[in-house]
């Protein structure tokens, strides 16, 4: 989501406008980029951990994201789209890493990301664990869509553009991901068959 006019803490502590920072960073102002990165990195790191399920891989993805962002920032045409642009780079970096990890067939020890606090109730902890399991069972590509929509707050058209897939595919994947998560969470709903035959020659 764009964040025009959003005040961010500058390096001198004064509130500054995000659009102004993006324009300055586009022009090569590294301090402005540091402020932008500082405001975004916690969320990017969390999103990457949710998608990749691994803290070290998430670190690699976010590092790659910010280096690419700095390098390619002069090519960003609309400063108001900085957040969406940064999220897109992050998700692509995550999916690249996930793809490589899968193809190398290396079994990576997944780092648990559920860290219960002492104030949590037992049902809360149990449900978070179930949700964690449900996320882990998803394909990384589907998990990315869940994270982009429900954690990064990206609208579906932006997700479709970011992933270079049609809007219908993005919606289908989210629908399927939520359906699978409900199964893991034991929240049954009428299930559609993934492959339903239709009659050939039937007018659409």
């Amino acid at each position, binding site marked *: 989501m764009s964040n025009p006019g959003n005040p961010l803490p500058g390096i001198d502590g004064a509130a500054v406008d995000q659009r102004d920072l993006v324009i300055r960073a586009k022009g090569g102002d590294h301090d402005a980029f540091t402020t932008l990165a500082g405001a975004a990195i916690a969320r990017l790191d969390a999103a990457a951990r*949710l998608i990749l399920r691994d803290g070290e891989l998430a670190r690699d993805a976010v590092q790659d994201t910010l280096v690419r962002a700095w390098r390619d920032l002069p090519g960003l045409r609309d400063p108001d789209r900085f957040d969406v642009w940064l999220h897109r780079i992050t998700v692509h970096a995550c999916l690249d890493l996930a793809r490589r990890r899968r193809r190398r067939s290396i079994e990576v020890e997944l780092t648990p990301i559920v860290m219960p606090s002492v104030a949590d109730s037992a049902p809360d902890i149990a449900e978070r664990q179930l949700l964690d399991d449900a996320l882990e069972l998803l394909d990384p590509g589907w998990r990315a869509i869940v994270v982009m929509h429900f954690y990064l707050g990206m609208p579906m058209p932006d997700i479709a553009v970011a992933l270079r897939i049609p*809007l219908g595919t993005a919606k289908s994947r989210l629908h399927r991901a939520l359906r699978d998560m409900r199964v893991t969470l034991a929240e049954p709903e009428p299930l559609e068959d993934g492959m339903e035959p239709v009659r050939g020659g039937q007018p659409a």
Partner: protein
Amino acid sequence: VSTRDRLEHRLPSRLEELAAPRTPSYFDDVIHQTARTRQRPGWSFPERWLPVSVLTDRLATAPRAPMRAVAIAALLLLALAAIILVAGGSRQSAVPAPFGVAGNGRIAWLDASGAIVTARVGEASPSVLVPGPEIQQFAFSPDGTRLAFVRPGRIGMDVVVSAADGSDAVVVSTGRPVAGVVWAPDSRSLVLENNGTLSRVEAREGATPTVLAKGVTDSFERNVTPAMLFRPPTGDQLAYLRSTTAGPAIAIANADGSNPRDILSPATAGLAFTGLGNLQWSPDGTRLAVTVTQSADGSDTRVYVLNADGTGFRRVTTLERPDSSIGENNSQWSPDGRSIAMQVWFNDLQPPTQPITVADVATGATRAVGSVSIDGFMSWGWSPDAASIIVVPASGRISLIDVATGQPHSDRWQAAAGVDWQRVAPPAP
């Protein structure tokens, strides 16, 4: 409140709890790393043309060859070629023309290990064509004799070309980022795409790429065919999408990238649109198909056709739904040029995915074929003989659809990514 609502309402807060955002300890390291990284200058990004190709410059300034000697050498070469043709022509194996209907060869796809595996229709057990891991993309050449694939190299990506059986592999390009590869119609050169730049390179070791165009917005990452770039039947022109200040446009250039010009833009189309995609020449080279997005949110996308000069811009189907916007995407001409197959979504229904839809280009009549794959397809395309459509749904179970009957059939092959069908010479009548 339904269970659906409850899960969707809980998710944002639960995800916050699962991965509590915190400034990571590596923040300073990243900032130092960016400080050591040079920014790419703004002019180096897409949306600019190469003013003149390097090749054209070089040719223009090269010393003139002695014409008499060149003519004699050419005559000798022609005579030699004629002798070879007469003597060995009967032994040559025929290859298909680069565009249009061809015979069905082997089917190949990427498996979960990142290897290219292959089988013929009816074969139960696929065999490995090129071992993995990490092959990203591949395609048979239009004449079916060669195979190009992309895999990570020591630096960047390697583009490798081999015989169609995977033997005699040579690295054509290394150390350069490559997002997509398209075979040229001659089956002897490739066009590489990265970050909006198209470069042509001969399919041999150590060849030097020549930049054809910059600012291209097409994606050549999957389901790539030469007709997505080269104009049939000879490949003497390129068509591609680019951004202009007025919006997206269809551009045409000579095959070496020279003389680029727009044939369709929002200013000339007589139709306001926000996006263009899936540009592809018809097999006879007289028309182009393109997906057109009219809505700002990308939800309403339709397949259009137009003549090669930009005239005759019209919708192919008449699909309408009163209860939903419609997405028609990933359109592909049938090899016989009569139909266009596309994926269709009714965006506001749950689930939105529809079966593959085949549209008659002349009448606009549509029919659904095959099965619904709720998650859409990883890859799909026409068989070279135009009788079938091969699909790889998200499940990875490859399915062949008989276009005449609409019935799907599966040999239980399992793919992890893209599929391609080798073109061979059509069987003798």
